């Protein structure tokens, strides 16, 4: 039975996603990075003495998001690449794709499995950070009640929104890594290229600023084109908005979420296309 003869199946897709999720949480890498991130967030209060600039609660929040973004990015790239190539190296991909299974089901199943794993990572890290902030804020409210005349200062809803947006950013990153993996031959190449793309996506706005208006028309055009090819990851950097002015704007949050979801769809689709052209 050929693939063309069976319709696209969400149940097959969810089976692959479930298996990918289970495989991922059993990995030492996931547990190691999760422990590191959780340990770092939990230890934020011990680094308070190093803080000179911002308020203590802001520092803990910055520190928590730092751990989330740093380890989350490492986890996304490494896990996506590892789970994809384990199927190829163990020859299970051959067995799977010999069955009436769409390559789109395979790629998006892998994506959803990884996305769920990163979701667990984000939920645990953000949850711990919020608990830590709540606890410390409660302590400070007892020590300096005059500073909290209008109640709690931290916008916990905003923290959650920024956490969800980070999760979506990791989703875009996972889709990019899957796209690279779809034509790459080795796990190492995929991981290294994934990190490079992460850096490019974070810094592409600087290139747009610096080179977008250069006199050399050709160079300017190339840079502007690159600005369109790579997603802008700084867009998800909303953690700084927390506690400033009116906080995180719901409209902006929705626009950023829409941007991420659209990119996941497009890059995922391109990964499927690229994977269909690949000989396994």
């Amino acid at each position: 039975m050929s693939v063309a003869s069976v319709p696209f199946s969400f149940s097959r897709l969810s089976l692959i996603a479930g298996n990918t999720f289970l495989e991922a949480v059993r990995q030492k890498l996931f547990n190691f990075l999760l422990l590191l991130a959780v340990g770092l967030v939990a230890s934020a209060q011990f680094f308070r003495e190093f803080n000179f600039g911002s308020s203590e609660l802001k520092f803990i929040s910055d520190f928590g998001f730092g751990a989330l973004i740093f380890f989350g990015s490492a986890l996304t790239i490494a896990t996506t690449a590892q789970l994809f190539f384990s199927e190829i190296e163990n020859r299970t991909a051959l067995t799977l794709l010999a069955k009436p299974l769409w390559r789109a089901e395979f790629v998006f199943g892998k994506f959803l499995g990884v996305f769920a794993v990163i979701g667990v990572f984000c939920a645990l890290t953000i949850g711990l950070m919020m608990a830590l902030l709540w606890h410390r804020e409660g302590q400070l409210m007892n020590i300096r009640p005059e500073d909290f005349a209008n109640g709690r200062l931290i916008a916990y809803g905003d923290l959650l929104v920024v956490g969800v947006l980070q999760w979506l950013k990791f989703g875009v990153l996972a889709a990019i890594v899957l796209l690279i993996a779809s034509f790459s031959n080795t796990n190492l190449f995929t991981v290294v290229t994934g990190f490079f793309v992460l850096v490019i996506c974070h810094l592409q706005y600087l290139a747009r600023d610096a080179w977008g208006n250069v006199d050399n028309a050709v160079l300017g055009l190339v840079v502007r084109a690159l600005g369109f090819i790579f997603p802008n990851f700084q867009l998800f950097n909303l953690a700084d908005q927390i506690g400033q002015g009116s906080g995180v704007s719901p409209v902006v949050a929705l626009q950023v979420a829409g941007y991420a979801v659209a990119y996941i769809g497009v890059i995922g689709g391109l990964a499927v296309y690229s994977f269909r052209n690949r000989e396994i």
Partner: protein
Amino acid sequence: MGWLFIASVTVRFNPAALRPFRAGAVVVLGLFAAGVALRPLEAPAWAEIRAGQPALRLESLKDALGQGVTVGLLGGFRAIVADLFWIRTNTIWEDNDLPGTQTSIKLVTAIDPRPLYFWLNGSRMIAYDMPNWRIDKAGGYDAVPEAVRLRFDQEQSSVAIKYLENALEFHPGEPLLILEIANVHLNRLKDLETAAGFYLAASRLPDAPFYAARIYAELLRKLGRNAEAYAFLQQLYPTLPTEDIGAMSNVVLDRIRELEDDLNIPGAQRFQPPAAPSAAASAP
């Protein structure tokens, strides 16, 4: 013979060999099309995010990139990276290393321009410590002529003021930064007139500390503009909350009385503080 050889070679065109290139081109074009299509969604959100985050400006980051802190910035550890660099700045400062300290101060605020602490203390190092380091390096206070010392003061003050003006780009209308500029003019450059202007500007901003207005009035007195100082303090006094110790309304009233004596104001024309609301009037 050569062309015959070339003609005899059969170039076999294999379309399958082009498949990876074709796939790559489709991927790149797809990403480009997605970027173009999503720009209307990205642009308004990006404009709003950037407006609220001065740290995302190229001018802010260009000093920090390539200093080994990129990973920290990308990873989101902006605050902790800046704090660690601030500790390093203080270590360099202890060695009286002028170029090293100056570079490190600018690096810290390039990494994280949000905290005022870095800007204020960095400018103090530049304006107050560095002239002394230069004098020491030039042979000490006894060996360096007054004119050279003055030049060192002016040069370092100029750097500090420029640094604080840069800070104002990230914190527009921040009274503490304007006060710091005023302090440099007053304490380092001994320019009372300019300093008074900055103290006045700072005192008019929301959340300005009460002492900004008091120092302005004192500078007017030192400049011999007693009548102006008297008029200013008369306007200032009713705005001061009596219950706030920092407002020092009693000190302001004392100064008003001193100025009245200096200006020989007749008793009938002297300033009458507004009566505080009595307990009986406020009782239900």
